[in-house]
């Protein structure tokens, strides 16, 4: 909200410099967003002198003037009757934005170039007179900026008012805070209007049929008015806060709105059927054309202001085209109402229609301020329109609520704030913003204050609200800084947090950089990953109001994000990537309100294993690179009993069949590792093989050991013996090793794969597999003779089990 220093000065004598005032307001909770000079728009308007006046060759009523701007002589087309040679007058140069919104450009008027504009008071927003150009004091210096030459200066503050402070959505509201800061007096304008009689009640009536929506409706009537432009003082006030003057009646409603915060509406009384007002909710399916000429579709919860026959306004939101003030209006019904904030908010949200009035109603206007605002406006309207207020006012107040007083404990206030304020100090702080302190507490009770907030403070309902008032007026920065007692009972981090932190460091060690992608996904992300119809990852949590299509759901996999990251980097000529992400995926569950959220680790490796360098040629990464990362990762976490088994072809959706393995541990699927499916790569517009792994943290966590029990390290040397067999290529080496280990005596410590070889001299369809067996005894140094028969039996078993042959 904008307020100007000059307007504020009408109600409080401001002693501070504008910058100090801005700081002080910010520190009591009225955050100043900007401080600006009001007459900045006159920066391109100078004191000019008319040097020469000649006829305009193509227009009788226009002249062609040569004007000295102090810098140059320019040619200006002017129609003013009062232009004279030697006269000083404001000369606006191209780029000037006038208060009515017109932006001056260098242009051609009837064939003659006009490089500027000689201006009237009215055009410059400096006065009423539009009859001719402004004549300036001859003692001014040509070429000076107009604002400084005339001593024009006013400061405009843009204030961010928090939703709890609707009382500050007015100039008086801000002035009240300033008065409290300065400890000075607030002067209210004259809110009284003497009524000779109550003739209004003979001319009109107000009927409230929806008291929940409209607890109070005050009306006044004006007659014999004449619609015309407002006097300059009124226009000037509106202009100072960025409002455009319209006509005297509308301007008064806007002026009083800005001054008091009470929205008003003026109806053309003669256009009200039966000259009366009925306040009711809309009928289902009812439509209404608002002032902005748009048709609005209403529902039964919206409040309508009606006359004897039809709706004339959406209550508190916007008036209708059918009862608008027009140039020939002579009688005005002035509405000053208190509408239910929730009702107004619902209506504005539903209609997508926000107005200054609705903004205030939905935050809560002063239910006790309707009459004073109506009086103020009626008086001003009569004054500026030549009309008069009909005697009396109508005040329908079915929703009357008494303001309730609150008990405030000095001791509790000090306990919450950490202060040592005296009761009297608290009392004075609250009084400075018009709270009343009751005298009725028992004489012995030195602790409690009985506080009644003013009716405009609709945000105050609890003692804590009063404590906040005390704190902010005392000054947050004056409250002593202390530190809470923190006993040493902190808990250790959870397994989840530990695992996440450990994982990040391990992944760094494997050369993977951490990425963070949005948790959003495209609604077609299941198709992009070729997921099956029954895949739970197709159970999307959809967002009703997404920003973009590719963020219209919550992700059910980290894979699309990693592939998009790859795509982004490929476009930046970065082809070698090792990235990982830890994040949640979201699976919608029809049986429960909230989705299942699982934490997942995913990694992607694409491009080189190592880049070309003096050490060697570039080599591309492959399945075994990414599998090695997963193995090392699980190893580091001491999750040892893990199997990698080939993912059946019909389960390979986003990974390539034959090049994908599921990772199994303790009968649960921990995740998968594999090469990306070429079709999925194509879906993400990637033209380079990529390998990925995914591990589900929720399944890993049960496998983490709380402690490790150490084993004795071997005391005696080992004997190593190798076996080479030739088997069918389809046979998985895992089978061979587990068979070698099976049924072996305790002397067999380990069986390790040494090499796998296909090609000549091995027959096609076969491969040679070499194993190294480690033999060791815990009791003694083994002799060759003890090992030989065992080794032979293992070799025999392998040959027999797999129908293997021995190398020639």
């Amino acid at each position: 909200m904008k307020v100007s220093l000059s307007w504020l000065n009408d109600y409080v004598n401001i002693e501070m410099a504008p910058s100090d005032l801005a700081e002080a307001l910010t520190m009591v909770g009225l955050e100043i967003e900007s401080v600006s000079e009001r007459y900045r728009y006159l920066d391109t308007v100078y004191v000019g002198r008319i040097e020469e006046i000649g006829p305009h060759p193509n227009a009788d009523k226009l002249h062609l003037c040569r004007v000295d701007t102090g810098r140059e002589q320019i040619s200006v087309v002017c129609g003013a009757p009062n232009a004279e040679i030697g006269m000083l007058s404001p000369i606006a140069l191209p780029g000037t934005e006038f208060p009515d919104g017109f932006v001056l450009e260098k242009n051609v008027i009837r064939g003659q170039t006009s490089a500027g504009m000689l201006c009237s008071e009215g055009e410059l927003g400096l006065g009423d007179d539009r009859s001719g150009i402004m004549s300036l004091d001859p003692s001014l210096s040509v070429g000076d900026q107009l604002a400084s030459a005339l001593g024009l200066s006013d400061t405009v503050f843009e204030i961010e008012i928090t939703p709890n402070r609707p009382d500050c959505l007015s100039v008086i509201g801000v002035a009240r805070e300033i008065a409290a800061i300065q400890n000075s007096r607030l002067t209210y304008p004259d809110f009284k209007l003497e009524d000779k009689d109550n003739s209004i009640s003979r001319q009109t009536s107000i009927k409230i049929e929806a008291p929940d929506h409209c607890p109070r409706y005050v009306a006044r009537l004006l007659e014999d008015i004449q619609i015309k432009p407002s006097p300059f003082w009124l226009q000037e006030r509106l202009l100072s806060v960025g409002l455009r003057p319209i006509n005297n009646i509308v301007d008064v409603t806007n002026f009083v709105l800005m001054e008091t915060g009470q929205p008003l509406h003026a109806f053309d009384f003669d256009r009200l059927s039966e000259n009366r007002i009925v306040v009711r909710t809309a009928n289902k399916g009812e439509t209404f054309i608002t002032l902005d000429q748009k048709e609005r579709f209403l529902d039964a919860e919206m409040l309508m202001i009606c006359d004897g026959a039809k709706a004339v306004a959406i209550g508190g939101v916007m008036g209708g085209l059918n009862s608008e003030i027009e140039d020939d209006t002579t009688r005005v019904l002035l509405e000053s109402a208190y509408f239910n904030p929730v009702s107004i908010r619902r209506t504005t949200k539903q209609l997508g229609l926000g107005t200054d009035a609705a903004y205030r109603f939905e935050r809560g206007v002063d239910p006790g301020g309707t009459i004073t605002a109506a009086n103020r406006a009626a008086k001003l309207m009569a004054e500026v329109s030549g009309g008069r207020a009909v005697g009396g006012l109508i005040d329908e107040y079915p929703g009357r609520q008494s303001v309730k007083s609150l008990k405030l404990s000095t001791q509790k206030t000090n306990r919450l704030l950490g202060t040592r304020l005296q009761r009297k100090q608290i009392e004075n702080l609250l009084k400075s913003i018009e709270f009343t302190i009751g005298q009725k507490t028992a004489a012995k009770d030195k602790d409690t204050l009985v506080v009644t907030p003013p009716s405009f403070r609709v945000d105050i309902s609890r003692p804590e609200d009063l404590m906040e008032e005390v704190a902010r007026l005392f000054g947050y920065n004056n409250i002593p800084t202390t530190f809470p007692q923190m006993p040493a009972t902190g808990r250790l981090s959870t397994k989840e947090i530990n695992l996440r932190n450990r994982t990040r460091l391990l992944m760094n060690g494997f050369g993977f950089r951490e990425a963070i992608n949005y948790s959003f996904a495209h609604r077609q992300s299941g198709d992009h990953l070729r997921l099956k119809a029954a895949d739970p990852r197709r159970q999307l949590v959809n967002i009703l109001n997404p920003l973009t299509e590719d963020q219209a759901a919550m992700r059910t996999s980290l894979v699309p994000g990693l592939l998009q990251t790859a795509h982004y980097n490929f476009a930046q000529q970065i082809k070698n990537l090792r990235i990982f992400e830890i994040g949640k995926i979201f699976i919608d569950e029809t049986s429960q309100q909230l989705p299942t959220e699982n934490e997942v680790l995913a990694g992607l490796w694409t491009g080189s294993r190592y880049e070309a360098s003096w050490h060697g040629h570039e080599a591309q990464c492959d399945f075994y690179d990414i599998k090695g990362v997963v193995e090392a990762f699980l190893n580091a976490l001491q999750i040892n009993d893990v199997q990698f088994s080939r993912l059946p072809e019909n389960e390979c959706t986003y990974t390539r069949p034959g090049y994908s393995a599921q990772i199994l541990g303790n009968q649960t699927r921990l995740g998968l590792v594999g090469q990306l499916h070429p079709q999925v790569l194509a879906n993400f517009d990637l033209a380079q093989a990529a390998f990925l792994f995914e591990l589900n943290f929720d399944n890993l966590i049960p496998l983490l050991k709380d402690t490790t029990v150490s084993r004795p390290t071997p005391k005696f040397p080992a004997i190593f013996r190798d076996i080479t067999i030739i088997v069918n290529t389809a046979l998985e080496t895992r089978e061979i090793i587990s068979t070698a280990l099976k049924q072996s005596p305790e002397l067999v410590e380990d069986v390790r794969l040494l090499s796998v070889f296909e090609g000549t001299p091995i027959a096609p369809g076969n491969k040679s597999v070499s194993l190294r067996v480690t033999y060791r005894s815990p009791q003694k140094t083994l002799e060759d003779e003890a090992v030989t028969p065992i080794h032979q039996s293992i070799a025999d078993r392998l040959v027999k089990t797999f129908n293997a042959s021995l190398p020639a």
Partner: protein
Amino acid sequence: MDNSIDQIYQEALQELKAAADRQTVEDIRVRYLGRKGIITQFLRNISKLPADQRPAAGKQANQLKNLLDEACQETTHNLETVGETAAGGIDVSLPGRPAPCGSLHPITQINQRICDIFTQMGFDIAEGPEVELDYYNFEALNFPKDHPARDMQDTFFVSDDVVLRTHTSPLQIRTMEKQPPPVRIIMPGKVYRCDSDLTHTPMFHQVEGLLVDENISFGDLKGTLTAFVHQMFDEQTSLRFRPGFFPFTEPSAEVDILCVMCRGKGCRVCSRTGWLEILGSGMVHPALYENVGYDADRYTGFAFGMGVDRIAMLKFGIDDIRKFFENDIRFLSQF
């Protein structure tokens, strides 16, 4: 004869001293101690000496032979240890074989630092769902339905009752529902608001804090956040507490820190104010205690929340928040 064996030994030692590589040492050894070596020859010739001189001469010659053998071995060992100067060495300026090296996302780094500071003070870490019930995200936090306070946060809706959490504050309620006071927790996590520009992304990160106990005051809130800011930035970073509005705290305070870029002189980052708004905070609103069944007469507490991304932008001098989620390797590798 005596002089001669000693002389031979001395000559051999001189030659060893001059030897620059192992081959030379080996040559010397062969020349003196080999099968046809000088000392070997000398020992053979002892048999030709008179019988009474033989034992003494033999003993001396054998001693010197052993000494020379040891000297050869020692010289070889030394040459191996210190390196062979004649080999010319290697180009140590050539890059080594690359060891893998990843990086932590800048948001993670700042998030961990924030959490470290608070856990060292005695706060525990709590986590919770990102898709949240309206009840926890708004209602229980004293944001009534149809209240303009809800406009302060542009909300992504999943249904009428389910939203993407707009702040980590729902965990205040979830935690207090589960445990009696005292509560000392910080709550890091992702939050969502439908907003996107230079300083807003639809997803960002927050760390929330909550302390509820007997006799916790606004002064304690100031002290805790001051200690945090001094550790996060430095001791010279002063703080400014000013009234603000959050439905779930009363009194509420916005916390500004002295601009870390210009130190209060005014610059683009702080919009020439000299201050940066980095934290929202306040004393826990009694309505929350009512919602979770705490005794509002007995307990008081404070809560605070901060944007991790914003702090990361300040710490690392990043001007566009969207860079965090592009994951450009050239960006990530800077941290």
